């Protein structure tokens, strides 16, 4: 947390409501997101109780299970969920666009649109990943476990959950993380994980302060948990007795009671889901009201590229995601993740003065006035040529920059790249920072006119988001056996007793 974000929390407490932390929204929101609220049975690894899914506040599908421990009911639930989610995905798979060839790159295809899933919180993302893991491998042939739509749902859920690890991706967004990124509340980060408490701070009901509204939303009767875990009291008072009566009625052949209790169960579960369902749409409306960041467009293209290639992978009969990455795949994934994190952070700072200001409090950006300039400075390059390397000096009150070997850019003049050459402390928390222009300065014979800011001009420098060089890894065939080289890809894992070794 930056000191600016921390200070904003204190202000939020004093003013009784959350304070904005971002000027723009850094994630893309599609016109028709798929909202998914899901509840699981306590104590089980992945046994869904109920879910609400749909693309509009008033267009929801409610799915419930009367006995989540029952394997057949669980599979029936997944089949129904697949019937909602897969067509939604398929419609977007069918929007392929042709991208023209670019230097060094052949022409290729990209889906014009991609699916986006919005869930309440991080816990739901983790849960979907778990569900994906439990169903993405098709069971052995000639059993009841072969429904291909369930395995396909599992593969897509796994794909979404993996994309959610990338901070710039918008394919699967937990709403609490989105809201907490855009607003500072007057509570702890732990409490920010609760959707209802976050909303209480961002839009407290008339007459209540954020603290009071958040306290009110701790009542699980008025504000049921956003899932996937349920309220233990609800489990004991509403759910368990009905489940038992329902089971007994089924066992004794009392169809009337069985039908009645099934409806009661469904109503009880719906009563737990609906408040969260509405809150998710409320939260989405809040996010939509924030203008979208310019660079999020490119990141969404990135998402669409990944969606396109995963879709192709599936149509071409590719294997489901393995249980464990191979060594090279794992290294490649880590490198990609690391790059995505840096890119996202650097890009946000260029799009959003709030992020830039946060960076200024931690020494990864600085601003100040130009107090000296050498626009005509020349040096001799290693090859003996005279080259233009203008320098100028900035006086700043910000903490001095930590990194020296990093390309920096002023969001106002994005064509010029500079590097820090010298940092000198001055009186009273001031520093003099001398930077050298390393790109965008033109040549000795034709210098760029605006490469060096004027004296007394206000400037601000932050890291230039660069793609770096992508790390290189050997292909699977070239990986030595010590790093689990060539081996047959896993096609399915039997999750029952057969797994025992």
């Amino acid at each position, binding site marked *: 947390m930056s000191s600016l974000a921390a*200070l904003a929390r204190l202000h939020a407490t004093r003013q009784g409501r959350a304070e904005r932390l971002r000027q723009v929204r850094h994630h893309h929101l599609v016109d028709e997101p798929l909202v998914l609220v899901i509840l699981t049975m306590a104590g089980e690894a992945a046994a869904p109780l109920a879910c609400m899914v749909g693309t509009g506040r008033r267009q929801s599908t409610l799915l419930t299970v009367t006995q989540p421990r029952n394997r057949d009911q669980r599979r029936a639930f997944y089949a129904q969920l697949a019937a909602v989610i897969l067509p939604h995905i398929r419609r977007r798979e069918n929007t392929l666009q042709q991208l023209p060839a670019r230097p060094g790159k052949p022409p290729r295809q990209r889906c014009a649109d991609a699916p986006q899933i919005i869930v309440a919180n991080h816990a739901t993302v983790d849960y979907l990943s778990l569900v994906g893991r439990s169903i993405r491998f098709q069971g052995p042939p000639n059993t009841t476990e072969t429904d291909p739509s369930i395995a396909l749902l599992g593969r897509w859920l796994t794909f979404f959950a993996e994309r959610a690890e990338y901070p710039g991706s918008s394919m699967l967004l937990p709403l609490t993380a989105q809201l907490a990124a855009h607003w500072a509340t007057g509570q*702890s980060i732990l409490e920010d994980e609760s959707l209802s408490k976050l909303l209480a701070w961002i839009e407290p009901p008339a007459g209540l302060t954020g603290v009071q509204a958040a306290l009110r939303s701790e009542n699980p009767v008025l504000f049921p948990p956003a899932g996937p875990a349920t309220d233990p009291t609800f489990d004991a008072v509403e759910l368990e007795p009905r489940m038992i009566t329902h089971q007994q009625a089924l066992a004794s052949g009392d169809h009337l009671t069985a039908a009645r209790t099934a409806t009661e169960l469904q109503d009880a579960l719906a009563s737990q889901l609906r408040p969260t369902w509405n809150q998710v749409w409320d939260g989405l409306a809040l996010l939509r009201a924030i203008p979208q960041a310019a660079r999020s467009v490119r990141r969404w293209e990135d998402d669409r590229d990944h969606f396109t290639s995963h879709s192709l992978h599936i149509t071409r009969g590719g294997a489901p995601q393995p249980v464990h990455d191979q060594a090279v795949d794992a290294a490649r994934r880590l490198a990609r993740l690391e790059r995505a994190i840096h890119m996202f952070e650097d890009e946000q700072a260029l799009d959003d*003065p709030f992020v830039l200001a946060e960076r200024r409090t931690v020494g990864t950006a600085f601003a100040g006035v130009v107090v000296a300039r050498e626009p005509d400075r020349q040096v001799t390059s290693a090859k003996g040529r005279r080259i233009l390397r203008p320098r100028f000096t900035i006086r700043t009150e910000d903490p001095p920059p930590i990194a020296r070997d990093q390309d920096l850019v002023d969001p106002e003049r994005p064509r010029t790249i500079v590097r820090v050459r010298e940092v000198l402390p001055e009186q009273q928390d001031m520093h003099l920072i001398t930077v050298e222009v390393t790109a965008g300065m033109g040549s000795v014979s034709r210098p760029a006119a605006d490469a060096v800011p004027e004296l007394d001009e206000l400037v601000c420098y932050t890291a230039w988001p660069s793609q770096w060089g992508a790390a290189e890894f050997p292909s699977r065939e070239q990986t030595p056996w010590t790093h689990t080289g060539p081996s047959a890809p896993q096609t399915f894992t039997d999750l029952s007793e057969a797994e025992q070794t």
Partner: protein
Amino acid sequence: MNTTTTRLNALRGGQPPVNHNARTLVGLSVNPGCARRALLDACGADKGTVARQAGHPWQFGQSRFALARGNAFEQQVKEYGGARLLALLRESLDLPVEQVAYIPLKSVGDSTGREQRYRQTCRALVGAARGGPDPGTLYDHPMLRLNVGGNDVYLEPDLIAFKIGDRFYIVEIKSFPVIDRQANGAQVAAATRQASIYVIALQDLFATNGLDPELVATSVFLVTPKDFGNTPIATLVDARKQISMLNRQLARMDRIDILLDLLPSGLTFDLAVDTTGVPTRPAANLAADLRRIPARYRPECMAHCELAGLCRDEARQNASLDVYGQGVVDIFGGVDTTHTALALAEGRQPSDDQAGVARTLRHAERLRAALAEGAA
């Protein structure tokens, strides 16, 4: 009766003491610096009832479904005289298949009194320890005892002590899944801490009987379901860190007099229960007494302590930075309250030791003001 016990009883008041179990003992180690919790636990007060009566009920707990699932899994693992469990343990320790014994310690004839069962456990385990190397014996449901803050606490592990060779292992059966060889870190940590309490109690049992406490292994077995099914797997977890941490905590409980000495006289958590068993003590009065004992609220308390609601409310009233969590406290180190932090940010002259944090605060406030201007 020693004076500490008398004073603790007076502190608790008329209600019967709540029994500690491994779960509550583990809870002690979550926020070791909190005197309020240490005293309430040491005197055996029912924190949930106390918090409710003081006007700040706080709910957390396990769902019945989770408990049911836990019990079912445990039974499944132990069925057929522990045969399945034994096969698992053998596999993880790479043991040869030999004749083994299974000794249930659940009841002693007709009586299941705790002290009696404890003595029976002592006899069985001490006898076994003196008996030399063993091809493997499972002791189901031993009753252990531990002295906590001057009081004996009986611990009835849902578990098994497993003697193999000269060593005794604690086996803890938990129903959270290990998926693709990975389990939820928090759940593993909690289970390991619980098993560590049993290790300490078993070491204590041997020590009081003149045996070497080293007979108890400091690694514990966690038996959990594998992936999404019910197949159990056993994992040997090194618990040395947790054991030494809990030992420190327990030693601190023994020095509870130091905390007691600091209390104003007449302070009590008595709920003034009437003849029908209903607590009648006024909320404000009880809360006032609770607040006379210093607490150390942290947002993490919300998941571990029944008093969290009361302490959070208190921290808010005091405008303490603790309500925001460690991240904020660290950034504004040296400043305790929201008022001070905001005053410094808005230009109040800092004291000498606040100079650094005041600079940070003023800088952040300047940026914030500029942003507000830009946005307007």
